[in-house]
């Protein structure tokens, strides 16, 4: 544990910090320091998407003034410390989520693909195409250890929603390598942290070295070649998935040069922070009881921050809940119902108040993410300045299941490419995909379009 905070304080802090704004004392001093990296002055761009289920309180989201001189709306209050690095975009619609047979899942799987989602009749799981984060990962993720990360808080729901023929898998997947291939998510902080950082935590007992992994992975590739000779086309696709997966671990775990490169850029500050995280995760596992997922959400966020900071990865997605999540939010003051239930508020003021409080909690987590990134210096900028952190939900108002005027934010300017610090309203029915296209353009990824986009917002680009 670092000097900034003791174990006890931290534990007490868990309860207290929920409703409080971000506390600087929780950040180790070193985290605030300027840390040189091997990357020199040119900092990479990072991207993350934070997904929230069930929409937001429709009347407390959009700030009333537009342009750069705007007051944060009640729901956006948690973002007050990073307001000038925030872009509020209204009026966007995910058109392929309009008039679907189902209210949630088909508006989740395609939030980052902006394509139609297929009904699940037989084996056809299909979100329509690659998601924008994966397209970015294909371009900017290759040089980092992990091309991209997918995190969530809850296990995927099983089964197919019988009344609509939609697999619940759609409600737990926003990152898609292709329309038919969702990325798997990590939902456990310990596993997510260890996968990336275990080897670099000072003093941590390491598992016995595995000198034969490369040999094993080599020969199982031969197995694929052999099996392929007896297989049809669809089988070969399945084997292709296996082969791709094997190659991706080889590339990462057995490429000693890139591992050395990675290790070399882990500064002493980062190591201290890794150690601190390691302890926090242990404590969380030991003490986390009941329904309060705040600390778990923050651990996942901090792991993403560490990944961006150390350049372990440049692209991430994080689902604060699965689609139509019915999380019990009774750990919040004034909330005694579950999330999906209150989202069907029928304009009942008591339910709407709870709905707003739950939305506020989500904004606090998003704000925590932005502030952590903003606390890390990169040259004379911060990590947040070099990132674009998208916030999105597939619905505006849970009661209406409507994918119009979606609650959309971007935090950070992607290395000074996006004009932040303003509240903008696009023309009604502008495709959400135009924003995806805009973010791709801000990353110098040239595309003719994305999803159902019909242009991009040059006015948002610097």
């Amino acid at each position: 544990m670092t000097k900034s905070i003791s174990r006890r304080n931290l534990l007490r802090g868990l309860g207290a910090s929920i409703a409080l704004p971000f506390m600087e004392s929780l950040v180790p001093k070193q985290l605030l320091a300027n840390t040189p990296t091997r990357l020199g002055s040119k900092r990479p761009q990072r991207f993350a998407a934070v997904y929230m289920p069930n929409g937001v309180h429709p009347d407390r989201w959009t700030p009333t003034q537009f342009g750069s001189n705007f007051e944060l709306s009640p729901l956006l209050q948690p973002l007050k410390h990073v307001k000038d690095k925030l872009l509020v975009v209204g009026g966007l619609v995910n058109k392929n989520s309009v008039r679907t047979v189902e209210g949630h899942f088909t508006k989740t799987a395609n939030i980052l693909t902006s394509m139609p989602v297929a009904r699940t009749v037989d084996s056809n799981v299909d979100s329509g195409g690659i998601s924008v984060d994966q397209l970015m990962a294909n371009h900017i993720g290759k040089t980092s250890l992990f091309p991209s990360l997918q995190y969530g808080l809850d296990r995927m729901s099983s089964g197919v929603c019988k009344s609509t023929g939609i697999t619940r898998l759609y409600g737990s997947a926003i990152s898609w390598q292709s329309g038919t291939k969702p990325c798997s998510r990590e939902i456990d902080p310990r596993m997510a942290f260890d996968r990336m950082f275990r080897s670099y935590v000072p003093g941590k007992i390491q598992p016995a070295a595995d000198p034969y992994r490369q040999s094993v992975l080599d020969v199982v590739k031969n197995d694929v070649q052999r099996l392929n000779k007896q297989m049809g086309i669809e089988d070969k696709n399945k084997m292709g998935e296996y082969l791709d997966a094997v190659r991706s671990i080889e590339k990462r775990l057995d490429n000693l040069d890139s591992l050395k490169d990675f290790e070399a850029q882990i500064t002493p500050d980062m190591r201290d922070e890794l150690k601190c995280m390691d302890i926090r995760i242990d404590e969380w596992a030991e003490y986390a009881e009941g329904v309060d997922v705040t600390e778990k959400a923050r651990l996942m966020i901090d792991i993403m921050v560490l990944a961006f900071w150390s350049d372990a990865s440049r692209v991430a997605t994080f689902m604060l809940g699965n689609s139509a999540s019915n999380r019990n939010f009774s750990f919040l003051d004034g909330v005694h119902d579950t999330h999906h239930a209150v989202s069907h508020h029928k304009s009942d003021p008591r339910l709407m108040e709870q709905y707003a409080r739950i939305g506020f909690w989500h904004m606090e987590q998003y704000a925590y993410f932005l502030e952590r990134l903003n606390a890390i210096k990169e040259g004379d900028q911060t990590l947040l300045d070099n990132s674009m952190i998208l916030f999105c939900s597939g619905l505006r108002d849970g009661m209406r299941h409507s994918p119009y005027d979606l609650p959309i934010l971007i935090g950070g300017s992607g290395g000074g490419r996006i004009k932040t610090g303003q509240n903008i309203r696009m023309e009604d029915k502008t495709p959400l995909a135009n924003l995806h296209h805009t973010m791709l353009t801000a990353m110098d990824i040239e595309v003719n379009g994305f999803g159902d986009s019909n242009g991009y917002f040059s006015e948002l680009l610097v």
Partner: protein
Amino acid sequence: MDLKHFRILIIIVLSGFVHQVFADTEADRRWRRISFPIFAKHCTSCHNAADKKGGIDLDLYYYVPSVISRGEMFQHLVELVKDNEMPPPPKPPMSKAEKDSLIDLINGILEDALSAPDPGPSVVRRLSNREYTFTIKDLLGIDFNAMEFFPKDGSGGEGFDNQSGSLFMTPLIIERYYMAADSIVRVVQNDEARWENLVPRSYSPGLIRRFTNWVKGTVFNRPIKWSKPTDLAKEIILPFATKTYRRFLSQEEQTDLIQFFDTIYFNGLWNKQNGFNEALTTSFKRILVSPTFLYKVEVNAPIHKPYPISNQELASRLSYLLWSSMPDDTLLRAAYYEDLHDDAVLNREAQRMMQSPKFERFSQSFAPQWLGVEETLLNPVADEKLFPEFTDALRRSMLDEVIDYFHYIFTERGNLLELLDSDYSLLNESLAGYYGVPGVQGSEFRPVQVADYGRGGILGMGAVLTATSLPNRTSPVLRGQWVLDQVLGTPAPPPPPDIPQLEEAKDGAHDELDVRRVLEKHRESPLCRVS
């Protein structure tokens, strides 16, 4: 899946036939010759790979079997074309000649398909997490909870977690497979009894051998290799791989496995203490991450009509169906010495397997997924304040009732109709108490007469009634839909696209009305009145 389809499913699974398409036939060519120009002219400007309007890409259907596999979709297409709904105005309509030839062609293909049932291609699929857990248990006697350790499997198609289309492989999953193999092998290694069972004889080179090797390696710089350890390893690795892969190994596979052992052993392990065992554990690990283990592979014959799968493949199908796991030795022996395609043999083995306690896994996995009740009971949405009695224990009991009832019918009663209706159910004390059925004590489930209490059959089960309810009340709509879909096999069509969402109607009066009145009100609306 309804009862009728359930029977067909069992028949298809056990008939042991698959159909794989490689060759391009005259029928395929005719299909393309006639349909492709029409699609190109009228359809694929929207229904292509990029736009995929309505989720449909008509460029995908190159072969007749691919048309048959999406028969329902093509049937729908015929309807829409017939009614001039597709192509939609303002797009120019199809000419009569185009319409006729397309409709005749598709109808012809679908009718032919009905008269000659096609088992369809068999697609290789990964073991589901459930199957992985039980396979490891039956292979090594180790309890490894894959359901917790691996990212969760989604469900495809009819709602089952063993559907090929939703059993993906990703970098994260393969990493976990590797870690799992590693920890499973370590558990075996650290457990003397288990290890000896797997490796009855170990090996370490004697003094003379060490000296010879030293001379060979250091003095003459020649590669070191001698036959004894390889021979011994062969006797250990090959039987293990055969069992793990659930089939005989090809000559090439055997050579490959042994070569792998040799490479590891002779390059650095031979002169280490425990080196032989270390090379063996690495070989076991290699087998446990091989696609041959992780996937259920069936060899595809390059012919264009149904053909029988091999005996060993059929054994695997049978055991994964009934046990969620690999075949046992008895079944493998039957597959080898007898013919599982012989009804008498198949029947005998199926009966035997259904007597085994392992058959409970079938009921545990199949019944709740089939009825679609697992999700509602494990992640309940019921309003806790309205239903405080709906506790974790009660939920678990409701799920167990489904499983045990199903199992009881399958193993004791043998009458599937009792799923629909009967005068008994399987209850324990807490569930009987909840149902108001007196005289049941203890946590064991047992058959209880319930006819007087409105129970009996799936429609009286707490699990089913909960799954077809809203958080705060019952829902005649959901329940009706469930019966149409699950029991009768005639699902209601999805709502027409122009209906506003119920909530969008913004009818505050709904709250004040009881459910019956709300539904009557809905029925009055012309939009909602679907005939």
